[in-house]
Every structure is written in structure tokens, then in C-alpha cells.
């Protein structure tokens, strides 16, 4: 291209946050993903936050139909998708209206002004056109005729106008790529792979992408490019990974590391369904995925598969987990190993199904009839899901008991760079089954399914094994023989044993880390998906000289042994949670510590600023 491009500056910045938003038909998720991959390939640390409407396709142009994707990328380690946005792309008025509040003052605002017609403005609730009424003066507004420019760019390819308009997201990408000095190559490769079979579509997207890029080069109004250097990350090969994918892969890895078939019994539910989708693609790893008729069949088939000797997993979200409560009691009393995944979403009831929340902790801890303790672990971010899955299986198979694994919508759909491990480096998960015996042998001994090893685990005798025939069930069992028992002392004993099995895990997990000093004025205690914002906020506070430390829990039941001492080392304890204080109540009960809560249920993760503000208020 040889248009005489005006000279432009490049400004080096440490980090930046970009958000694409538009109608859900506008391809914003794709734009976001491409920008993420490109930034990751450029060596930045990245964190993302996709946000889409509950409806499949809300009416075009409405606020309810707005879809967004935010990318935070940096030359340093980062832990969150960013609180405020440096550059916002808004494809229509509704997107502008619902997103502009997050753009920082003086931030870059790129809008498709072709969409700001009467109808569009009305649907967004604007009385006057914000592009013209001065209300956006505090931003660097670039109002671009994207629709027109794209139509021009693809002219001659024989596309209908509707098809042409579908390329607009590539124009927007191109422009943002230019703005942040990014290479087009990954996206060109992507277009090639994805649309190779429809050359006219591939060409159109390519043209739109480049048109956007050249628009940036050319137009004088935009005179600065920004550059974010590669981050210094631990050496290795990286990829970008979403939480649900990492979780599914972690399960695949755990199955292979324990030499087990993997059985997933699941019923679709947002935001857990992708675990089912992902695993169903990998059957050649000896994976069986069973889409059950409901969540009860999902969990009970999982119990059946566990009895059969498989690595058995069930995955759902809040309402589905509620339905599994009764059956989890059976899993607990039969002492069979299995993983129960809850990708939490906004409740109660159907609640806010596409939004994130951490409000199912109580349900995991207490939501079954009788004394029915379960081990609970949680993942702290997308990539961590890979390891959390393996840890869940290690514990479950070692102690012969079901284990809850909690993630949430934010983790599940968010993505971050993941240093790809080698399978050979991952610790094996050793599982043994009692051996067959010959009942005609004079040493034959009736098999007792409730004898116990040092971990109080009972033997995992698998149907099909000669001489180990036995019956399990939901009535109280006599320890040892496993026969039905109404004996009062035995019931007390078995109740105690089931609790002790969970408690024993505390001796078998890594020492609880504290980020910062072991004593101080304030401990921020967190779990699950709030890891990133808490980490960042605490680092800021530490940088400001405050005696604040951070302790992030992977293990919630049992708690790490060190936790009590850690809590006692601080004058105050703050527990930020995306619920109304669920971990807090458990901590208060267990340790009689007057922990304070920072709580919010608004379908959104914490911003760093929210946590920082609370820290500043407290110390």
C-alpha cells in the first residue's frame, strides 16, 4: 500500500486494557479472542473477561443484546482483566451506553458511527446523539464510519450487504491491532483456517481487517500508537487457555496419570456445559461422556461408574448441583471416589445464569441431609483449573470419597496464558484395587468392603473381580463388613469416620502460602476466582507500605492446618467474596475470628479498586 501515511508516534506503555463491545451478532467474542491470542503471542501476560447476554439472540440493537469482551495485557504479571478500560470499541449506541462508564478519563473510544441512527439511538435510550452532544468530551473519541468503510473494502467480492456487514468486527480488530502495534499474522492465519473453504468470506474478512489497520495508519486524527513489551514469564511454551477447557484437560490428564477410563455424567447447564463439550471431543483418550436425562441421572450414573472402577466425574452449576444433593449422600456413605464440579453462577433459583457468583459454597459444604461431610477444593483461575482437577482426583481416589471442585462463570469463561506442562512431569496418581481371590481356596476369606487402610480408605473392589463380591448401599453400614447396621454405636462411629476422612486431607496438602509477611495489620483471605483482584490489591497496598498480606485458599474443607495460626497473626481479617459471606461464616465458626466481609452479588467480579478501597478503609 502506498498511500502516504502521516507520521505517527509510538508510546511505550506497561499495560493496557481493551474492550470490544457491540450487538451479540457483531462478533465481539471473536474479536476479543483474536486480540487475546495475538497479545499472548506477542509475549504479553493477558487476562480476559467475556460478558454476554442471557438470551441466545436478544433483539438486535437493544441493551439486553450487548456482548462484550475485555482483554488486559501487560509486560508484567497480571491477575485480572483490568478494572477500567483504556480503549473501548463500541459497535452501536446500546454498546456505548452500557459500557462507556468503564472507560477511563481520556481513554480511547472507537465507535461505529454508522450505527448511530435514530432507531439505534432510541433503542439505547439516547435522546440526543452522544457523538455530537459533547457528552463524550472526556474521552478521545474517534467516530468511524465502519459500516461504510467495510462495504467499500469488500466491494467486488459479490457479497450481499448483510454478508459485507458481518465483516465489521474484522475492521474494528484491524484498527485496534494498529493502535496497539500488533501483528495481523495470527488473525490472517485464523481466517485462513476458519474460512478456507469459503474463499470469498476469507477474502472479505482479510480486506476488512487490513482496511481497519490501514485506517489507523492513515487517518490523522489518531496519531499515537501504543506498544506493550513482552512480559517476563517463567520460561516455557505457552498457550492461552479458558477455565473450562483447562478443567476438562486436567481431568483428561488425571485419568491418564491414574490409568483410568474417564466417565463424565452431565446434563447441560450454563456455564458448565463446555466441560461436557470439550470432553466429548476427546473420546480417543478413553473418555465416556454421558449426557443424562437430568442432573440426578448425571450424578447417579457417575456413582455407578465409580462403583465400576472408572474415574467418575459429574459437572454442573448451582441449580443442577441442588438436584444432586440426595445422591451425593449416597456417594458419601458408599465411600466411592468421584469428582463433583460446580461452575458457580448467580443465584438463587435460575437467578442470573450467565453471570458469575461464588454463592454455592454453603451448598457444597452443607447441602445434604444428615451428617454428610465432603472435601471441597477450589480453582483460583482459568489455568489453575488444570491442576485443581488433578488434585481433586488425587484426594478422591486416595481417601475413597467424593470431592467437590468449585469454579465459577468468571473462571470458566475467562482465559489466561498457561505454561504448558509435559505429561511426564506431572505426578502420577497411584490407585490400587484389591486383588481377586479364589473362593474354592482354603484361605478364601469373605470380602469385607469396609475395612480401612491408614487413610481410612476402604478398598475399591471393582465388580468383575472374582471373590470380592459385595453389596453397597445408602443404609448405614457396619464398619468392616459393610452389612446394613442399625447399631447405635456403629452409626456414631461411621459418622465420625466419614468426618475424619475429610479431616485427614489436611495432613496431605501443601503448606498454606501467605503472600507477604506472616503477621501484620490485615490479612486478606480469599478463595476461588477472586484470586486475581485480591492479589493485585494486596500488592498495591504492600507497595504503599501497608502491613497487609494475602492468603488464598485452595482447600476449603478441610482447611489447611496452618490457617488458624495465620489468622491469628493479623489484627484484622478481610474476606472478599462474590456472595454475602459464605466462607466468612465458616471461618468465624471454625476459628472464632471476627473476620470482616467484602461482599457483592452483582454478577461481576471484584475490581481491584473495590478491594483496595476496602483495604484502605481498614488499615
Amino acid at each position, binding site marked *: 500500500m502506498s498511500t502516504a501515511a502521516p507520521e505517527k508516534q509510538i508510546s511505550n506503555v506497561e499495560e493496557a486494557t481493551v474492550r470490544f463491545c457491540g450487538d451479540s451478532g457483531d462478533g465481539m467474542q471473536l474479536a476479543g479472542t483474536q486480540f487475546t491470542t495475538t497479545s*499472548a*503471542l506477542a*509475549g504479553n501476560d493477558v487476562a480476559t473477561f467475556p460478558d454476554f447476554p442471557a438470551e441466545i439472540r436478544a433483539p438486535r440493537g437493544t441493551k439486553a443484546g450487548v456482548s462484550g469482551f475485555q482483554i488486559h495485557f501487560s509486560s508484567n504479571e497480571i491477575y485480572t482483566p483490568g478494572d477500567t478500560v483504556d480503549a473501548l470499541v463500541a459497535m452501536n449506541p446500546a454498546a456505548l451506553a452500557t459500557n462507556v462508564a468503564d472507560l477511563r478519563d481520556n481513554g480511547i473510544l472507537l465507535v461505529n458511527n454508522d450505527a448511530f441512527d435514530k432507531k439505534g439511538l432510541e433503542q439505547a435510550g439516547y435522546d440526543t446523539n452522544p457523538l455530537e452532544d459533547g457528552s463524550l468530551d472526556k474521552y478521545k473519541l474517534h467516530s468511524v464510519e465502519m459500516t461504510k468503510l467495510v462495504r467499500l473494502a469488500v466491494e467486488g467480492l459479490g457479497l450481499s450487504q448483510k454478508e459485507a456487514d458481518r465483516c465489521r468486527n474484522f475492521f474494528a480488530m484491524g484498527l485496534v491491532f494498529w493502535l496497539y502495534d500488533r501483528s495481523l499474522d*495470527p488473525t490472517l492465519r485464523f481466517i485462513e483456517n476458519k474460512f478456507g473453504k469459503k474463499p470469498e468470506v476469507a477474502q472479505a474478512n482479510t480486506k476488512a481487517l487490513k482496511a481497519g489497520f490501514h485506517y489507523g495508519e492513515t487517518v490523522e486524527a489518531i496519531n499515537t500508537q501504543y506498544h506493550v513489551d*513482552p512480559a517476563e*514469564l*517463567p*520460561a*516455557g*511454551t*505457552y*498457550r492461552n487457555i479458558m477455565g473450562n477447557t483447562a478443567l476438562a*484437560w486436567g481431568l*483428561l*490428564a488425571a485419568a491418564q496419570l491414574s490409568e483410568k*477410563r474417564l*466417565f463424565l*455424567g452431565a446434563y447441560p447447564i450454563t456455564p458448565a456445559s463446555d466441560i461436557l463439550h470439550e470432553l466429548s471431543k*476427546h*473420546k*480417543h*483418550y*478413553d*473418555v*465416556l461422556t*454421558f449426557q*443424562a*436425562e*437430568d442432573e440426578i*441421572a448425571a450424578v*447417579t*450414573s*457417575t*456413582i*455407578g*461408574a465409580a*462403583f*465400576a*472402577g*472408572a474415574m*467418575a466425574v459429574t459437572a454442573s452449576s448451582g441449580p443442577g448441583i441442588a438436584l444432586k444433593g440426595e445422591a451425593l449422600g*449416597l456417594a458419601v456413605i458408599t465411600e466411592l471416589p468421584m469428582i463433583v464440579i460446580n461452575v458457580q453462577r448467580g443465584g438463587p433459583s435460575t437467578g442470573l445464569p450467565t453471570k458469575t457468583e461464588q454463592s454455592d459454597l454453603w451448598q457444597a459444604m452443607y447441602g445434604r441431609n444428615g451428617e454428610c461431610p465432603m472435601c471441597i477444593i477450589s480453582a483460583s483461575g482459568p489455568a489453575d483449573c488444570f491442576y485443581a482437577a488433578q488434585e481433586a482426583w488425587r484426594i478422591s481416589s486416595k481417601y475413597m470419597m467424593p470431592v467437590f471442585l468449585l469454579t465459577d462463570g468468571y473462571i470458566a469463561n475467562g482465559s489466561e496464558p498457561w*505454561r*504448558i506442562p509435559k*505429561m511426564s512431569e506431572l505426578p502420577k496418581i497411584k490407585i490400587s484395587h484389591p486383588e*481377586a*481371590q479364589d473362593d474354592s481356596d482354603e484361605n478364601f476369606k*469373605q470380602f469385607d468392603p469396609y475395612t480401612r487402610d491408614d487413610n481410612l480408605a476402604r478398598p475399591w473392589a471393582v*465388580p*468383575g473381580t*472374582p*471373590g*470380592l*463380591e*459385595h*453389596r453397597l*448401599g445408602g*443404609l448405614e453400614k457396619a464398619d468392616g463388613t459393610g*452389612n*446394613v447396621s442399625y447399631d447405635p454405636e456403629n452409626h456414631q462411629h461411621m459418622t465420625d469416620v466419614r468426618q475424619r476422612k475429610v479431616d485427614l486431607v489436611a495432613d496431605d496438602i501443601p503448606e498454606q502460602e501467605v503472600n507477604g509477611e506472616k503477621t501484620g495489620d490485615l490479612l486478606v483471605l480469599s478463595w476461588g476466582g477472586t484470586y486475581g483482584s485480591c492479589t493485585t490489591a494486596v500488592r498495591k497496598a504492600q507497595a504503599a507500605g501497608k502491613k497487609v498480606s494475602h492468603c488464598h485458599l485452595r482447600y476449603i474443607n478441610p482447611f489447611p492446618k496452618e490457617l488458624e495460626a495465620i489468622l491469628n497473626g493479623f489484627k484484622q481479617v478481610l474476606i472478599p467474596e462474590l456472595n454475602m459471606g459464605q466462607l466468612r461464616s465458616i471461618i468465624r465458626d471454625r476459628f472464632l475470628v471476627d473476620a470482616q466481609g467484602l461482599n457483592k452479588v452483582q454478577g461481576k467480579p471484584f475490581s481491584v479498586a473495590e478491594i483496595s478501597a476496602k483495604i484502605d478503609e481498614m488499615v
Partner: protein
Amino acid sequence: MSIETPLPVLKPADFASDQDVRWCPGCGDYSILAQMKKVLPTLGLPREKIVFISGIGCSSRFPYYMNTYGMHSIHGRAPAVATGLKSTRPDLQVWVVTGDGDGLSIGGNHLMHCIRRNMDLNIILFNNRIYGLTKGQYSPTSPLGKKTKSTPMGAIDNPLHPLSIAIGAEATFVARSIDTNIKHLSEMLKRAAEHRGTAFLEVYQNCNVFNDGAWEYATNRQTKLETTLELQHGKPLIFGKDRDKGIRLNGLDPEVVELGKGIKEDDLLFHDEKSPEPSLAYLLSRMRYEDGFPEPIGVFRSVKAPQYDEMINAQVEEARKQHGKGNLDDLFNAGETWDVK
């Protein structure tokens, strides 16, 4: 230690566990248990290959009394537990024992889905038309007007007919037998065991404590030959003490006719358990004593169709043909990656 198991010669007693049987004296469940213990040794399977899964109810205590693998699970869920088990271990023979409440009330949906998937399970539904274990409430098979603890003025729910439901879900094997007809019962158990895919067997079972005589008409020596009709593949539908009555089709409606008097065997409806269309089986399942019909016992339908348990494993094999056993390192490294040094 892996033990070679030459096909053992087993006796019924080998299938008895060491647990005391705790049904009420006189309960029809005893008979079904006894026949099961007789049939299993004839199947040529070692004990360890057999698993009994049940829900909750008197009938669902069954697994405790069998010296095989087993699970007394939770109310209504046995078919789902069995689905996970059988999918993972298709080499096992899996029996599901359930009651009319367990299988048709709380567990109706699992039963239906299990049947439509044609999971290779043998499902035995002990139909005593009552909730036994919870001491006598009406069940989905209790007749209209039935007075029970929970229906002192009589039940107002039209009963479900287990076989009609199963055929509605296009079951590949559907049969019926009676607790006291032990020869027939053991034959049906054997047929169920031999069927590949879901075998659904309803057994009329007497609960002598809470619903004594519910099947009196079908078990009473005096009446049973008039009130029941033994189905035989390829044979006309004949019944009666003197085998002088039969079932003839009038359009799509069955009717009872007397043989002789101008009506020959050839005029009767002939049973075809292998008919690809389940309509005949459905029609037979609608023949009810209260409507003046003899109730068919025997195999209503027995056809071959693909099984879920086989197919789920076939997909693993197929995927392996396409992709090999797979290498997770490759999976993790596929797509866009970058190196940090």
C-alpha cells in the same frame, strides 16, 4: 494376582449371600428371589460378572440377598446408577430390581430413558400395586378407587401400566410374569437375561401385608386360566381352562371369542414377539382384566436394536481409529502457542 476362572458349576445356594432375608413371611418377593437363584447358575456366568442394582423399597432389598456385586442405591435411581456402571463395564451383566413406586413413580423418567437408550440391563419391576416399605400408600399401579393410607376415600389417579409405558418408549424386550407361577417366572428371567438391550420384565407380586390379593384373579387356581393368557411366539392367542377361548382382532380392537362355533384358531390373533413394529405389543399391553380380557403373560416383544452401552464404547474405538490413542502433550500444544525463554 489374576485368577483364571474356568466357568464354574454353580448352584442356586452359591448365589445366596450371608444376610438374613427380611421380607415379611409370605411375601411374593421370596419366590422371585428363589427363581433368580435358580436361573443365574444356568447362564454360564461367574458370580463376579453379575451386578444387582436397586432403588429403595421392599423389593429393592434384593441385592443384599445375592452373593454377587450389588448396590442398594436411592429411591428411583437404579436405572441411572446401572447406566453408569454398564457404560463403563459393558462386560458385566447388570440387573436392575425395582418396585412399582420406585420404578414408576419417583423413577419413571430414568426407566423411560434407560429403555429408549436400550441400555443392556435386565430390569425386573416387582409390581405389588402398593408402597410396601413405607407401609401401604397407593402406588402408580394401584387401581382407581383404591383405598389406602394416603387415599382413605379412594385413589383418583388413573393407574400407569408399566408395559404400555415401556412400549411407549419403544422397549426392545417387554415381558410379564407372576410371582407364584414359578416355572413361567424362571423362564422369563432367563429370557430377560439373554436379551441384549433393555429387558423389561414386570412381575405381579403379592404384598400380603398391605395389599393382599391384589393379583388374586391371576393367581387363584380356579380363575387363573381364565384371567391370564400365556403368550407364545408364532402361536394364536388361546386361553381358558379348556383352551377354548381366544383373542381375535376386530379392526384394531382385540375381542374375546370362543373357539368352535365357527371360529377357528386361524381366525385368532397370532403372537409375534419379533414384529419390528411395537403396535401389537402395545395392543397386548392394553388387555386388562378389568376390561374383561385375560392378561397376557410371557414375552410381548423381543427385537434386536443397537445398545447404548455398546455404542458409547464403539465411539471410543472409532475415535481411536481416527486419532489413535492420543497424546495429551500434543493436545496441549496444538493451536497457537509461544515460547518464553
